[in-house]
């Protein structure tokens, strides 16, 4: 178009609209709410020129310079496109405004660069940069203090003086062990004037098993550990605890952090002979699991796909959130809105875990035995493979004879007594198909008259459809009943019922083994009709059904009185010649080979193979067979294996099949537009975050690499010394638990939505130092707690408060409220009832109602004074659906959520729970009994002792008198309750 032509168009008769003064205000008024600096729906924004012109996530340009009328933007604001009217809510644009936009686009959409908001380089972000090499500021003593003092000085602040010995002793005990010091501990420390007294106390506490218990609890918050599955049914997870114990042990043994990370992602691959390598995989399975979505819906269905997609989502979010402190899960539906995490990265991380499910995994807690066990299993796999390879050419040579025997061994059994030797497919009853397993169906036989029934026998059918074979259509949950009422409304006698007792335990497919109800006469089981009612159908291909070859009903004499009797059914496919109601009682059913027949055939087949083998092959084969027998025999000598609920290749039947049946081959993973499983896009292989450039983001693995190699690659990537996130993440978490606030205040989010580090250089120095000195967490604690910064008192300083009211610069230590677990443990320690038994299945402080369906956890029915609950809180059985009410009111972490930082709220509900909960009241009684037995003679001594136990100091004279008066009037238990409710008890200074 020429300039002349342009000038002739009416819109341009006037000057073209100016972007800054005419156009931008319209965008701002109508569009910025969703497409501006704050929010960018569909990734589109009208404040940045490049994005406004080129389109958002869709990539389709909305503005076509020079072509106002055809530009999508104009069509949208003019309301010309159904479903894309902009703005979707509120006032539409005035015609004049639309005309202005149109004219501006007609004029070529001139947009001065200066009027465009700048978009930062997404990779230019502190947490993605390599760890800086930092030289600590010159300062005597702990280098850490130099960093803190430098920043304090820059703001005209100074550190606080050190806290007194008692305060320090209490602080250190709680921080490192989660328990209060005894009055004797404090007295000894206060009296110890040696210069290394504090350092020795640190060492003593770090060496205590209580340390691991304390810090494992922090870790379990982050990984959202629980002892139930969560979701609707919230079934128990009885084998989760070995992972919890592993974490306790890892902290206590000061396992190098890199190893700790590697074990949790790929311990089975990288350290296959160790129990730790298996138990650590409880990390992958720590979060909730959708029982219904897995166990009741097959993977072939959309709901099943969604369940498995969300399951992997949890694994990915947990991994990257925990170890890398990034919110990768935000890239599930679209590229991350704030951080440089494309959707493809997210799905490549899903691909790392795509072979896994959450399930129980066999191993042995004893390392030596576990090593032997894993070795034998490996040998067993290898021997089978070698045997198969050796036999393959022999089988080919043995030819048709071999194949025939194999067919006879494996093929449908003979079923027609009238034609012996002739294979015949099953004849029987076959219900209509159902798209879900949870459909009720029944079939019944009319015996002609009401008779006493001995037993009913169900004979399974056989059909090769979908490779199912023996037991085709055999019901998964069912019952057998008799009645004189053909509608089974009245006088129903139960012969057999499985599903009510073990509602979730499916009946295993019996193959061709007949299933008989228990027999009996004289038990009142009389009826004219016998009905089999199915409540859960058998899977076929993408659907479900119910089939039986034969239903036999025997009378007292053992005669089959159902033979030839009429059959009715809820529904039936009536597909001649094989499937018909009448076939249910036609006397024809397939039968399996007898054990003898089978052995005979196998012997014959063996002879064939030997006949075509040369001598060395014979010998080699004999060797392998002997080897295989030896392995099987040795495996038999092993006791029942231990179980840990972990990320694992699952081999299951029914709906929850896992990938085991496919040899653990990873499920194919695609980028899902908007996170919808119904719209799979580009396939992706295993990989990780592309924002870190120290190594390729997609793992270079051969296509036939096992799934374990994917996890191993991720484990190596995470623990690469060049991965800055891993090292920053962990030192920041540790810092937070020592100061109540991290150097980065959002420990799970180092992205743009998170907080910036208050002391970036200190963070990098600590991270690098931690990494380079072997990843010892105990050394890191030592470094932190021996600093002057940590040892500061909590002072009041109004001048400092004006400058830094949140104490982000650490001009004093922070006063911290005890978390739910520490509070509970401290109460038990003070009362003298704390049971320090470590490990094992969690103790329970609830009664379970209705365990067979969806368990109800009734905390109110439990005995508040049950000695089984006097163990440390980390060993509590953590239910997800109904959290422990007292703990919840104390801001305990919700086990369904990944919690990087506990809330510290204060509420009247908490006060009431602290005053009146049965646990508090009974523990106060124990405290009273304890001090009475320790100081049997004077009340004052008892009061003083209780005070010292609770607060770590004896009461001063002014405090003692009213306390004694109170104890006299109200009793010692009341005094104990009072002490446990004091601010001084609840806060750590």
């Amino acid at each position, binding site marked *: 178009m020429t300039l002349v032509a342009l000038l002739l168009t009416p819109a341009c008769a006037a000057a073209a609209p100016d972007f800054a003064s005419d156009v931008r205000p319209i965008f701002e008024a109508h569009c910025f709410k969703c497409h501006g600096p704050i929010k960018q729906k569909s990734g589109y924004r009208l404040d940045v020129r490049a994005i406004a012109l080129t389109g958002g996530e869709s990539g389709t340009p909305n503005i076509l310079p020079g072509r106002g009328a055809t530009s999508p933007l104009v069509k949208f604001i003019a309301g010309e496109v159904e479903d894309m009217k902009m703005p979707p809510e509120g006032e539409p644009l005035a015609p004049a405004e639309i005309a202005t936009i149109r004219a501006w686009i007609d004029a070529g959409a001139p947009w001065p660069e200066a009027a465009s908001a700048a978009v930062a380089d997404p990779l230019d972000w502190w947490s993605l940069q390599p760890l800086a090499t930092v030289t600590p500021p010159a300062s005597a003593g702990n280098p850490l203090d130099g960093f803190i003092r430098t920043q304090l000085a820059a703001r005209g602040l100074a550190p606080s003086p050190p806290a007194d010995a008692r305060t320090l002793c209490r602080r250190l005990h709680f921080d490192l062990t989660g328990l209060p010091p005894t009055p004797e501990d404090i007295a000894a420390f206060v009296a110890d004037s040696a210069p290394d007294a504090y350092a020795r106390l640190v060492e003593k506490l770090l060496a205590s098993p209580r340390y691991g218990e304390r810090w494992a609890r922090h870790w379990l918050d982050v990984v959202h550990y629980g002892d139930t599955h*969560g979701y*609707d049914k919230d079934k128990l997870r009885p084998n989760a605890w070995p992972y919890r114990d592993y974490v306790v042990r890892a902290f206590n043994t000061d396992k190098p952090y890199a190893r700790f990370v590697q074990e949790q992602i790929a311990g089975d691959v990288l350290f296959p002979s160790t129990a730790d390598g298996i138990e650590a995989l409880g990390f992958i399975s720590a979060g909730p699991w959708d029982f219904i979505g897995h166990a009741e819906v097959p993977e072939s269905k959309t709901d099943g796909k969604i369940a498995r997609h969300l399951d992997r989502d949890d694994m990915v979010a947990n991994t990257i959130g925990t170890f890398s402190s990034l919110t990768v899960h*935000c890239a599930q539906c679209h590229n991350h809105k704030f951080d440089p995490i494309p959707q493809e990265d997210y799905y490549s991380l899903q691909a790392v875990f795509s072979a896994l499910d959450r399930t129980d995994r066999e191993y042995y807690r004893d390392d030596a035995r576990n090593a032997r066990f894993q070795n034998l299993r490996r040998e067993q796999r290898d021997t089978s493979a070698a045997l198969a390879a050796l036999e393959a050419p022999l089988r080919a040579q043995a030819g048709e004879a071999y194949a025939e025997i194999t067919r006879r061994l494996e093929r449908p059994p003979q079923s027609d007594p009238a034609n012996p030797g002739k294979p015949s497919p099953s004849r029987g009853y076959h219900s209509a198909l159902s798209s879900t397993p949870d459909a009720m169906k029944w079939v019944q036989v009319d015996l002609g008259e009401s008779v006493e029934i001995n037993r009913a026998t169900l004979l399974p059918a056989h059909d090769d459809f979908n490779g199912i074979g023996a037991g085709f259509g055999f019901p998964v949950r069912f019952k057998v009943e008799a009645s004189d009422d053909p509608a089974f409304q009245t006088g129903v006698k139960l012969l057999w019922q499985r599903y009510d007792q073990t509602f979730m335990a499916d009946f295993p497919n019996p193959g061709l083994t007949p299933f008989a109800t228990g027999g009996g006469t004289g038990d009142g089981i009389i009826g004219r009709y016998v009905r089999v009612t199915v409540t859960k159908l058998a899977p076929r291909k993408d659907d479900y059904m119910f089939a039986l070859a034969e239903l036999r009903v025997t009378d007292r004499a053992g005669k089959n009185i159902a033979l030839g009797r009429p059959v009715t059914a809820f529904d039936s496919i009536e597909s001649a010649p094989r499937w018909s109601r009448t076939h249910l009682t036609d006397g024809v059913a397939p039968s399996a080979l007898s054990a003898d027949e089978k052995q005979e055939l196998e012997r014959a087949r063996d002879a064939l193979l030997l006949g075509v083998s040369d001598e060395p092959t014979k010998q080699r084969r004999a060797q392998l067979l002997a080897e295989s027998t030896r392995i099987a025999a040795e495996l038999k000598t092993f006791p029942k294996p231990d179980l840990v609920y972990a990320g694992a290749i699952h081999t299951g039947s029914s709906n929850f099949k896992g990938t085991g049946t496919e040899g653990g081959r990873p499920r194919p993973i695609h980028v899902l537009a908007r996170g919808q499983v119904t719209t799979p896009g580009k396939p992706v292989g295993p990989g990780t975050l592309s924002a870190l450039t120290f190594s390729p983001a997609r793992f270079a693995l051969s296509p036939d690499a096992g799934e374990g190699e994917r996890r191993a690659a991720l484990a190596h990537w995470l623990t690469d010394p060049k991965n800055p996130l891993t090292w920053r993440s962990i030192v920041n978490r540790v810092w937070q638990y020592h100061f109540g606030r991290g150097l980065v205040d959002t420990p799970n989010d180092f992205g743009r939505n998170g907080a910036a580090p208050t002391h970036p250089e200190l963070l990098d120095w600590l991270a690098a130092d931690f990494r380079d000195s072997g990843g010892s967490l105990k050394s890191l604690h030592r470094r932190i707690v021996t600093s002057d910064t940590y040892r500061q008192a909590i002072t009041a300083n109004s001048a400092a408060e004006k400058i830094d009211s949140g104490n*982000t610069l650490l001009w004093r230590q922070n006063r911290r409220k005890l978390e739910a677990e520490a509070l509970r443990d401290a109460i038990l320690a003070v009362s003298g009832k704390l049971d320090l038994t470590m490990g094992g299945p969690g103790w329970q402080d609830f009664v379970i109602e209705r365990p067979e369906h969806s368990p109800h956890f009734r905390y109110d029915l439990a005995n508040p004074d049950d000695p089984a609950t006097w163990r440390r809180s980390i060993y509590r059985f953590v239910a997800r659906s109904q959290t422990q009410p007292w703990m919840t009111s104390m801001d305990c972490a919700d086990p369904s*959520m990944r919690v990087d930082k506990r809330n510290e709220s*204060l*509420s009247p509900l908490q*006060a009431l729970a602290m*005053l009146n909960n049965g646990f508090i009241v009974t523990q106060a009684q124990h405290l009273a009994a304890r001090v009475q037995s320790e100081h049997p003679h004077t009340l004052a001594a008892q009061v003083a002792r209780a005070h010292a136990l609770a607060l770590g100091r004896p009461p001063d004279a002014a405090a003692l008198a009213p306390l004694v008066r109170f104890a006299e009037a*109200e009793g010692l238990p009341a005094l104990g309750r009072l002490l446990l409710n004091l601010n001084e008890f609840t806060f750590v200074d």
Partner: protein
Amino acid sequence: MNRISSHPLLDRRQFLSNSATALGSIALASMLGHDGLLASPAINLARPYAPRLPHFPAKAKNVVVIFCAGAVSQLETWDYKPELIKWDGKPLPGGPAVTFQGPAGDLARPQYEFRPRGRSGKMVSDLIPHLAELTDDLAFVHSLTSKSNTHGPAENFLSTGFVLDGFPSLGSWVTYALGSENQDLPAYVSLPDPRGVPQNGSNNWGPGFLPATFQGTTLSSKDPVRHLAAQGISAEADRAARALLGKMNERHLAANPGDGKLAARIASYELAARMQLSVPAIGDLSTEPAHILKMYGADDSQNADKAAFAKNCILARRLIEKGVRFVQLFNGAYASGGKLNWDGHNALKEQYDIHAQILDQPAAALIRDLRQRGLLEETLVVWCTEFGRMPFFQKGAKGRDHNPDGFTCWMTGAGVKPGVSHGATDDLGQKAVKDIHPLYDFNATILHLLGLDHERLTFEHNGVQRRLTNVEGHVIRDVLA
């Protein structure tokens, strides 16, 4: 320890009297997790339930949510489908063979007669005659959808906006945003059905990742309040203990100035003490006159379940009267084959006859009572259920299966346009077809009536600014007055 500072914020009296001191707010912000990231609101740690301003002027101050657990059939209540009468006994044309619990049977007519109600003449069923009399005052949304067809997750979805566990409930969001008008009672009270808690129990009133302060407190006309008193400790002994406790805490505060947390915890004990007095008083229905008990049906000696629910309804009114911000009133317990809640799979009519008796008169009386006391002008009353039911019976049964694709909830009271019927399901009442609203929209509308923008009421959790409505939600303008 340093000398006691003269910093004004360190004086406790002043600290407590000034509801918006910087220190209090800052201290809570840091307790809530992340300084500087708290989008809203500023909460005074010493008075977490202090009333706070909404985002914009609110039509409603308080809320009562009547939550009917188990999924009430829209077809037997509010969604009149004359076409279904014609189709009674016929198979659904092209319909699904199998639904949630089993194969579909034939279409079944509404199990109750419908008749025109009030001036509007809107057809409402005889199942709930008392509530039906209020038809002219109610604003119905007939076109709601849920994200789950399973009770537990669907309850979560209705109560928290997410199907998974662990997200804050509506009441927690509301009290987090607005505090409460009464400082002697919990800001958020849940009244479970006397027959039992709903399927997903405390998730329906859980705080999720919000501070535990904002969790619902469960009360009941039947059971004692948890933790309200300690067993074996007399009221006098308790008072003596709290008096000395207070003194010792004050002394400790004086020796440790400069930290708002200590003062805030003292305040929380004082509030607890007031609750100890006011909660039993609020639960004492003996002060209610006979005509009120009768109006609610609380005196029904023939129907203990109804009388118990009626007492909960009276309790709800008393709580609202006292300025409690959010009251959640459950009608229906956990999954029990429809025996204890509205889950009518097998014998719908038989069971609904029982459940409606329990719900109808008491719930209608609650609305009337709120109105006659002038409370309905500032109180929003919401009636809701987690999903609806199918137009056909289940095969071999006389009940309806789960239906998350089209169901009815309603609201009335402050800010609500009376007599509106918004949205519609198809002719057989199976799927929402007109003005379809996921429950997000319903929740967004509730927040809107309270003066809250559902997109601005956020809390940062694991890198996401979480909302009640996730990334969805549009206010349903048609129901606004």
